[in-house]
């Protein structure tokens, strides 16, 4: 028996296998993390191209470039790909790379399942994208796929859409189980829960949310499948069902889902802001409790997406006040980040720029969220560009900026080289300007009544839409610069030290840069 252990022990010290099969068969958390991140970036470019098609069409009123049917497919696929293909896999990729290093573990708890979680994704999105070339086109019912648009009136390819969602769900649930098992079970001796880095904490809570709601998403698409193919009447009022039931089940998944896309971002900001302020994070315990509160509240606010469907008055009031409650823990977080920077020795490297922009712009998105939470005025805002502006302000400078920040912050640790700081700053400023040009005018056209998901609009909205479209192309093309910076950083550059950043604190910075293939063969002891 000891022979087995010895060979196993030996295996820990050799490097990665060679060739393509290294990536297909790997059980290494860093390989899998890299694959997640690259996959996410490819999806980001595909989903972004779709967004640019939308913005090109909306540059002028009238129908110019695409047919309305195709426009609908673009809005739908843009949303699905960005949510499930870009943002979520990027955070899982970061979790894979960072959590074992941050908690002092050799790898993820269940490495083979980890690989399975990843490899499902390219197949699921291959299937989803292939629907665009099928008879009747791809999904055209919006990323929220409300019944009966997605059942009675859907193109035949909706069946493949359903199975693609099932596959994404399987992937997410297994990924989340892996994250939870790693955090609960593989922490180094002495790392108590309240000593865990906030990125680990936020991911622990995110993983819980994923396991709680991805099965509900699987449930709702299964109900659609049954309605479409087996004659059930979940969403058909003729048989005693209710299309509004779809929205309830969907948003019971959907609202925690939006926190799934933002909680890890909170963790990233909570790592970067203290580093470049050269101060410990202000109010660590309150950050943990705020994250947990946001997660718990996320289960009782779902119908604020449905104020206009005809809820009973008691429902409108309950969901309105419950939603507003979320502003309290979120405000705690914003306060803590600002207090961390207060009287710190601040420097403004690219990750810090992205993080500060995250705090400011995410707050704007949060405030427009509060406006939308007010049920009586939501009747005015519902399904307008104001909603589009709101969730793009929380997702682009929220989720996506935090992912960029994380990439710049940890790239030296991953590659062993510093990235080009000047180009990084150019990337930041171009993205910052592009995104505000794109999304800020949407508030105005939305308040003025421009409906979302429509390929044409009234002449009065033309000026703001042209600004949005110009901004979108600036933002979109800038991301190619990010690709260049990353590739340049992988191929060479100034050597990075182990700590990389002067103010960096945490177990991952005790490892050499680039981090060894197996993180901690022997767990470090935390005092």
């Amino acid at each position, binding site marked *: 028996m000891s022979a087995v252990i010895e060979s196993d022990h030996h295996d820990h010290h050799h490097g990665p296998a060679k060739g393509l099969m290294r990536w297909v068969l790997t059980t290494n958390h860093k390989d899998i993390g890299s694959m997640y991140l690259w996959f996410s970036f490819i999806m980001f470019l595909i989903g972004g191209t779709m967004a640019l098609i939308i913005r090109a069409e909306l540059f002028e009123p009238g129908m110019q470039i695409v047919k309305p049917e195709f426009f609908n497919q673009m809005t739908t696929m843009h949303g699905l790909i960005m949510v499930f293909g870009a943002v979520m896999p990027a955070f899982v990729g970061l979790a894979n790379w960072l959590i074992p290093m941050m908690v002092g573990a050799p790898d993820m708890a269940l490495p083979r399942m980890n690989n399975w979680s990843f490899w499902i994704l390219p197949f699921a999105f291959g299937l989803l994208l292939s629907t665009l070339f099928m008879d009747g086109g791809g999904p055209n019912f919006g990323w929220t796929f409300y019944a009966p648009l997605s059942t009675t009136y859907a193109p035949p390819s909706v069946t493949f859409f359903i199975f693609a969602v099932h596959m994404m769900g399987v992937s997410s649930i297994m990924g989340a189980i892996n994250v939870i098992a790693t955090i609960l079970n593989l922490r180094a001796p002495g790392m108590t829960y309240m000593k865990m880095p906030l990125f680990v904490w936020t991911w622990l809570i995110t993983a819980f949310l994923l396991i709680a709601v991805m099965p509900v998403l699987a449930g709702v698409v299964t*109900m659609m499948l049954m309605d479409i193919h087996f004659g059930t009447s979940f969403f058909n009022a003729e048989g005693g069902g209710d299309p509004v039931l779809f929205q309830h089940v969907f948003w019971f998944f959907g609202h925690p889902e939006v926190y799934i896309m933002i909680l890890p971002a909170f963790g990233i900001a909570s790592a970067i802001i203290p580093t470049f302020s050269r101060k410990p994070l202000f109010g660590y315990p309150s950050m943990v409790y705020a994250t947990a509160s946001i997660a718990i509240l996320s289960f009782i606010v779902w119908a604020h997406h449905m104020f206009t469907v*005809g809820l009973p008055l008691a429902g409108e009031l309950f969901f309105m006040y419950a939603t507003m409650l979320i502003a309290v823990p979120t405000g705690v977080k914003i306060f803590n980040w600002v207090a961390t920077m207060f009287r710190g020795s601040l420097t403004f490297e690219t990750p810090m720029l992205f993080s500060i922009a995250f705090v400011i712009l995410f707050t704007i998105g949060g405030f427009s969220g509060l406006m939308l939470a007010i049920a009586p005025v939501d009747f005015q805002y519902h399904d307008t560009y104001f909603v589009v502006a709101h969730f793009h302000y929380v997702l682009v400078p929220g989720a996506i900026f935090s992912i960029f920040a994380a990439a710049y912050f940890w790239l030296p640790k991953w590659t062993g080289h510093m990235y080009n700081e000047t180009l990084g700053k150019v990337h930041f400023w171009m993205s910052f300007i592009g995104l505000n040009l794109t999304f800020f005018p949407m508030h105005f056209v939305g308040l003025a009544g421009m409906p979302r998901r429509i390929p044409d609009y009234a002449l009065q909205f033309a000026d703001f839409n042209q600004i949005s479209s110009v901004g979108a192309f600036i933002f979109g093309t800038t991301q190619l610069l990010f690709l260049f910076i990353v590739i340049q950083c992988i191929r060479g550059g100034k050597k990075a030290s182990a700590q990389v950043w002067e103010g960096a604190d945490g177990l991952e910075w005790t490892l050499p840069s680039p981090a060894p293939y197996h993180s901690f063969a022997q767990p470090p002891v935390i005092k």
Partner: protein
Amino acid sequence: MASPQSYYVPEQSKWPIVATVGLFLTLTGLGNVLIAGQQASDTSNGWLMFTAGFGIMLYMFFGWFGTVAKESMAGLYSAQMDRSFRWGMSWFIFSEVMFFAAFFGALFYTRYLGVPWLAGEGDGAPNVLLWPEFKAAWPLMSNPNPETFPGPNATIDPWHIPLINTFLLLASSVTVTIAHHAVKKDHRTQVVIWLAATIILGAIFLGFQVHEYQVAYNELNLTLKSGIYGTTFFLLTGFHGMHVTLGAIILTVVLIRYSRGHFSSKQHFGFEAASWYWHFVDVVWLGLFFAVYVL
């Protein structure tokens, strides 16, 4: 045994990619079958893909679990690894709970809100203009549009087969627990007897369930197409039945592995995971018995 410091990180493995290809072919094949069926065209290509995918999945399950069993018996798994498996299984069961919660939620929503609103209760007055004849009731025997969705003639009496089924599953929970205690004491014959009893109870349950479905379809006109009552009834009991089937298969595998000496009185997580799953299936049934049949 492995030292507590060395957490076992497996080498490269082909099983994840095999599993992915299997899952992809199964679902894409099924999608092709369903779409071809919808358009009344040839389904054979879809079935071929589905069968191939399913075969690959089976091969994967044998291979992957076989590898894990071998590693476990080689003593590669520390107590810490064991805890990872426990967390993994617990959270997997939690995800299953949430899957059922979606369907229970749909049942409660339609029953207590959707159907009464359809009949014009609350703020839903305009609905009366659509189907003025419609009356809210549960079980819903007459649907808003009886032409497209003819309602059932009768529903299943909870105090016959469903009650027997309740006792069967409760008894099976007891037998699997007795088997677990026997595993811990290494009473090998007892384990085999009580585990086999559990599987037989599960099989009888499934037999009754099939019979109940036949009665529902042939005599009561209670089908998937008989409106929201049939919809929620078959989806909830059907998914539960699939879980019982899976649970029984898992217990059978565990029984075979036990008789081959894979489990010791100290280390038998495979057995425990199967019994957790079985208890979960039981608890879901209790919820079903009350929410679907009795109330």
